[in-house]
């Protein structure tokens, strides 16, 4: 039974070109479907503008899908701002890249971790205080840091504090949007280990959004590669990172600099990712694709099951 499922979700924004331009629809997310089970992590990878953060916001119910449906625990996601949604939000939490921006600089760490408990009316004062102490212990923050303000903490400590706050309401789903991207390697490893430990102990489901493929491989049970609003390949991270089938995944995986000899031949793409407001016809990747054929410019490839069970959206990959 999946905890979160997205079915054919699209999110369309409207923008204008220039001051007097006509409104233009931008499909930030285009017809994506996936589900996440309790205790599992779905990693979403892709480059800027591929729609991975929008996907996270739709999963949290902060944004309503323009099309398609979001089910949480089998129940449709209520519209944002409604009492039903507020109640549900205690079970869904977000951790993003910038912990300082996510914290109130005037409040102590303890006050911030306690805030969601007050908002959702959990426990009385002394219970809440015990809970805060336990949460800080769980994320590995020393007790004396509880009375400090965000600017008195290091980047890693801040991200731990944000995580303690996200865990305060005992969420079933955590959307982690580039949670370790701003941290140095040695601190990044501390936070990643803590995230996987907490997930194991509490059975939290995670949507882990990142541009860093190595980090995604480390934490994910399943991975989805996005390009210009669509999932182009989805499945087992080991299979996808060892042998990507979609030409875009191939380029992305081969672009990761690694010490020592590389296993996949380097594919350097030409050009920049296209503007989502100016989507190429057919497969959105075809203008940059090294192996594109005529059909790629004409029709959008469906996400189909390939031989080993993963899903791939490419005309040139044989279906199972």
């Amino acid at each position, binding site marked *: 039974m999946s905890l979160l499922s997205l079915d054919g979700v699209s999110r369309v924004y409207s923008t204008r070109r220039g001051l007097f331009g006509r409104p233009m629809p931008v499909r930030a997310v285009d017809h994506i479907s996936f589900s996440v089970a309790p205790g599992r992590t779905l990693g979403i990878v892709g480059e800027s503008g591929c729609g991975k953060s929008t996907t996270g916001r739709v999963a949290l119910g902060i944004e309503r899908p323009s099309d398609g449906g979001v089910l949480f625990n089998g129940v449709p996601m209520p519209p944002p701002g409604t009492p039903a949604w507020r109640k549900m939000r205690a079970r869904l939490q977000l951790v993003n890249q910038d912990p300082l921006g996510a914290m109130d600089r005037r409040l102590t760490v303890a006050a911030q971790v306690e805030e969601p408990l007050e908002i959702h009316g959990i426990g009385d004062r002394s219970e809440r205080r015990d809970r805060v102490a336990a949460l800080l212990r769980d994320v590995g923050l020393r007790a004396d840091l509880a009375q400090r303000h965000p600017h008195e903490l290091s980047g890693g400590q801040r991200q731990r504090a944000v995580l303690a706050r996200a865990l305060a309401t005992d969420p079933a789903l955590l959307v982690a949007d580039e949670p370790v991207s701003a941290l*140095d*390697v040695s601190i990044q490893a501390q936070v990643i*280990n803590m995230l996987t430990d907490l997930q194991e102990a509490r059975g939290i489901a995670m949507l882990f959004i990142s541009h860093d493929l*190595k980090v995604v*491989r480390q934490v994910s049970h399943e991975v989805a590669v996005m390009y210009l609003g669509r999932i182009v390949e989805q499945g087992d991270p080991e299979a996808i990172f060892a042998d990507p089938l979609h030409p875009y995944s191939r380029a992305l995986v081969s672009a990761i600099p*690694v*010490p*020592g000899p590389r296993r996949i031949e380097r594919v350097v793409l030409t050009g920049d990712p296209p503007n989502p407001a100016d989507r190429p016809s057919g497969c959105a990747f075809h203008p940059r694709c090294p192996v594109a054929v005529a059909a790629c410019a004409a029709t959008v490839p469906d996400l189909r099951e390939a031989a080993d069970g993963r899903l791939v959206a490419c005309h040139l990959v044989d279906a199972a």
Partner: protein
Amino acid sequence: MATPLVSIRDLRVSFHGLPALRGIDLDVAPGEAVGLVGESGCGKSVTWLAALGLLPPTATVTGSVRLGSQELLAAPPAVLDHIRGGRIAMIFQDPASALNPVKRVGVQVAEALRLHRGMQGATAAAEVLRLFDQVGIPDAKRRVHIYPHEMSGGQNQRVMIAMALAGQPELLVADEPTTALDATIQAQILDLLRRLQQETGMALVLISHDLGVVAEMCRRVCVMYAGRIVEEAPSDELFAHPRHPYTCGLLAALPDMVGPKRRLEAIPGGVPEPWNMPPGCAFAPRCRHSTAACDAAMPGFVPVGPEHAAACIHVQSAALVAA
């Protein structure tokens, strides 16, 4: 090593009395590619900002930085103006903020040509086009007339590189040149830097927090920690046989792209604050091999192989050699 192009000796920098750089010795040979890696605040950028006289007056800089026979630290501003962008060029992480937003990109590159090579008018315009072609900006004839905000991050970085090449530098210092870029664009820019280095024969100093980037681009790597170089080795050797406990820790903390998944080995604690520097080895408080002797004095470099040295008193001990 052949006569070095740049030779840095005992370079120290402090801000308001707090040490940021605590004695750097580094040579860069003509045409070679050297990587400087380390985490935020380790001094990898400060080293080159200090060398080029780009630090604010609040910084106290001592030591020596020689470019050939010219001492840079005491050099008058006019000499530095000639060297910066001329013999040594620098590019940074965020090209959009390094470019002037209200000037066309072609004009900005032409300005560098005028300052460093005395080119004007049609000669300069032709050279700008050639440089744009060289750094792989498509449709150069039209692109020279647009503004930075009309270009993507990757294209802006290409403009910065064209500007850096304008002075025909002997050394390009690239400070996190691809950190703000997407993975596929990063691959393009790294390819470009590699090709340009071969074409022009300039030396390259690549400053990065990304060990993978440095491994791919550089023949030699220096690992920095808390204002000092702690290990120096040819890059293949460094990644195959790291010897300093900090380098070993960094590599173990990095998730792999292939092979069996393992739990990451995090380095406990954090980097020391400048006002709270340990008396001896700065890494000792986080190091599992540390002993009382580590706190006694700052460790000197111990040679551990050809061109390979590490600043650790335990580097020859059995535990570390096995690791």
